[in-house]
């Protein structure tokens, strides 16, 4: 059994070694000093973190709801939450694009003759452009990352004994107080894990971003789309260098999150 597990670790190490052998330190340095890659690095870091935090905010109450309560339509909600996980990434991007740019669902049915469009309203009335801008990057990442976070939080609450919350309620706590004062403090590890998974998933997100946010340099280019662009023009060295940068970035962020989780649990 140990050998089987070791073979997986060996595979990952060999993959990284192959990447390292394919590129050179000079190529790596050249990639790092490019302004467009620096911009993509910054946008990736910020958008992934925003998507991860939003995911944890949404996933915690939703995971708690699915774990603790039985209500009509629960199975349907449970299934809907999983849709972004099973949906092909490009389809998700296309769906976002259609949602924002075609007449809003049921608008014509509710208000005959209406062709109200979400993107036009946000852009013209609110002054907040989404498509082909950074909000589209965050939304595309969030749509997928949140589904993983919900799944993680649900399992977390499933594993926490509800007895403590029941006791709290017999002592006068409301449902909300039981959640905030008893369940939430016990779910730190789960929240850190959900945040980690959401961040990592957002980092690797590519298809929906390409379709919904585009790959515009200095605007919506994140590191995953940089790899795609470099591959598209035959710059394999640069593509591998950026890939390694993503690996390094992921390792650093995951280590920080683990340390943070350990600190909070202490």
């Amino acid at each position, binding site marked *: 059994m140990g050998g089987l597990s070791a073979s997986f670790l060996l595979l990952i190490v060999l993959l990284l070694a192959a990447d390292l052998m394919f590129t050179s330190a000079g190529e790596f340095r050249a990639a790092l000093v490019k302004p467009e890659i620096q911009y993509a690095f910054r946008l990736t870091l*910020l958008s992934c973190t925003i998507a991860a935090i939003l995911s944890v905010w949404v996933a915690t109450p939703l995971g708690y709801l699915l774990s603790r309560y039985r209500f009509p339509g629960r199975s349907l909600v449970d299934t809907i939450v999983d849709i972004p996980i099973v949906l092909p990434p490009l389809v998700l991007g296309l769906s976002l694009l259609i949602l924002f740019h075609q007449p809003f669902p049921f608008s014509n049915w509710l208000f005959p003759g209406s062709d109200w469009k979400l993107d036009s309203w946000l852009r013209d009335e609110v002054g907040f452009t989404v498509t082909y801008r950074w909000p589209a990057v965050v939304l595309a990442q969030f749509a997928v990352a949140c589904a993983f976070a919900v799944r993680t939080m649900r399992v977390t609450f499933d594993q926490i004994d509800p007895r403590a919350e029941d006791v709290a309620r017999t002592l006068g706590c409301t449902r909300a107080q039981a959640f905030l004062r008893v369940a939430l403090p016990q779910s730190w590890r789960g929240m850190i894990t959900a945040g980690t998974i959401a961040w990592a998933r957002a980092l690797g997100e590519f298809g929906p971003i390409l*379709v919904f946010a585009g790959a515009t340099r200095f605007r919506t280019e994140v590191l995953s789309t940089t790899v795609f662009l470099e591959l598209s023009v035959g710059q394999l060295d640069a593509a591998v260098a950026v890939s390694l940068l993503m690996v390094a970035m992921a390792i650093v962020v995951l280590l920080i999150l683990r340390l943070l989780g350990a600190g*909070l649990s202490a």
Partner: protein
Amino acid sequence: MFFTSDEWEARAMSKTLLVMIGSVGLLGGMFWMLSRGDTRRPTMVTRSETGEPTGSDSDELILFCAASNQAVVEAIREDYEAETGRSVQIQYGASQTLLSQMEVTGAGDLFLPADDSYLKMARDKSMIDEELKIARMRAVVAVAKGNPKNIQNFSDLLRDDVRLVQANPEAAAVGKLVRDVLRRDGLWNDLEQATDAFRTTVTDVANDVVVGAADAAIVFDAVLHPYPQLEAVQLDELAEGTSQVSVGVSAGTMRPASALHFARYLSAADRGLPVYTEHGFEVDRGDRWSDVPELTVYAGSMLRPAIEETIVQFESREGVRVSRAYNGCGILVSQMKSGQHPDAYFACDSEFMNQVSDLFPESVPVSQNELVILVEKGNPHKIASLRDLTRDGLRVGIGHEKQCAMGWITQNVFKEGGMQQEIMVNVTVQTPTGDMLVNQLRTGSLDAAVAYLSNAAGSAEFLDAIQIQDIQCSTATQPWAVSKDSEYPSLAGRLFEKICSTESQEVFAAEGFRWQLGQLNSAPSNTFTRESSPVSRDE
């Protein structure tokens, strides 16, 4: 250290609150950084249609560009922004993905796909208006440097020891092109069976050879430019496998002049095309670059009402100037023979195009115009045929045979009708244009005039037209040609496309012309004669 249960709860709650508040603060901070970053990203000053600088993102030009063209287009974009001060936002992706994005969002001013098959798809969906040709690519076999498998001809690709990879004919242009070319020669089935894998993009195919997953791959030659570790092998069987790279202007763009400004830069012989050449493309001729190019067009006077409005619209959309000279074709030919060289010439009749065929070797017949007898409304002199023009005392006006096509054709009609001498006795005036004859008829200084039907199109309430029957040469054909020396052949070509548009053809019809060059409106356009007066028959 020991805590009581209340202390534990207080610590847990304070930690919860701290993290919740902290995460909200972190989110707010990061949103602010992104918003700030979005406005601070490197952007050149943009200019509006009128040339005025504007700072708004919504004024920025958006180009949807195939990822395979990224390197060359980025280089051209840098030059363009530095030279003109205008900025272009470029969105890269797979051609098909970009096309779908344009279709769903309606966004994008320009579309530059990997090859023009995607532009054709966009045109079929009425998403593209103008199309500017840039470069060509040729299908070749990519092999590792030194050609270790010694692939020299088509049969080598079928060898068992050669791992061949191709682009999927359903997903990539080069795959479809190769399949179409080889199917014609009955070679496709063999090659398909010898192919180890089909990939979705042409760069995936080239990458396979780079990493050693394949020995040979069929790609476009231009794709190999960034791969120093690969070389191309040209095969006779793929000689016809060429593909065109063009940029299309979105039909729905709100900034047509700005879009065409960058499109002209991309396809300019002294701007974008040399960069394409550096990147391994075979380029087309291209126009000379000018910020606001000036196109010179010579056209017969009769064509003025039919093309003037189209030219005005063209100037506005393209952001260019069209210097036009309308005159009798004889005069225009004299000017050209004396050294003036317009970019395009729209002649009243083929005869006057033939006289300058050295300047305009390739002309296209566009429309036809009918010679008629024009008389005062109600036809007080009861003129019904050419013969009636020989009556004593009748004042007749015709075109000058040396100065305009109309006059030259009129003389031919008189000769063919066998009454040249008799009618010329009554001719009191010969003018260089038909418009002058119409004016003289309206002032009462003439009783009849032989002119084009189009000359009287605006005077239906004052004049009647009598058709000249049974004389073939009474119809003039108007050809269009672009000068072989023109510095703006593409621009002139686009003007011609506008002249051939459906809207323009309707104007030609309304002005009494019969459209000859394909498409619609082949029926005679006798709007004037039908509505104002029945056409009299020449005997």
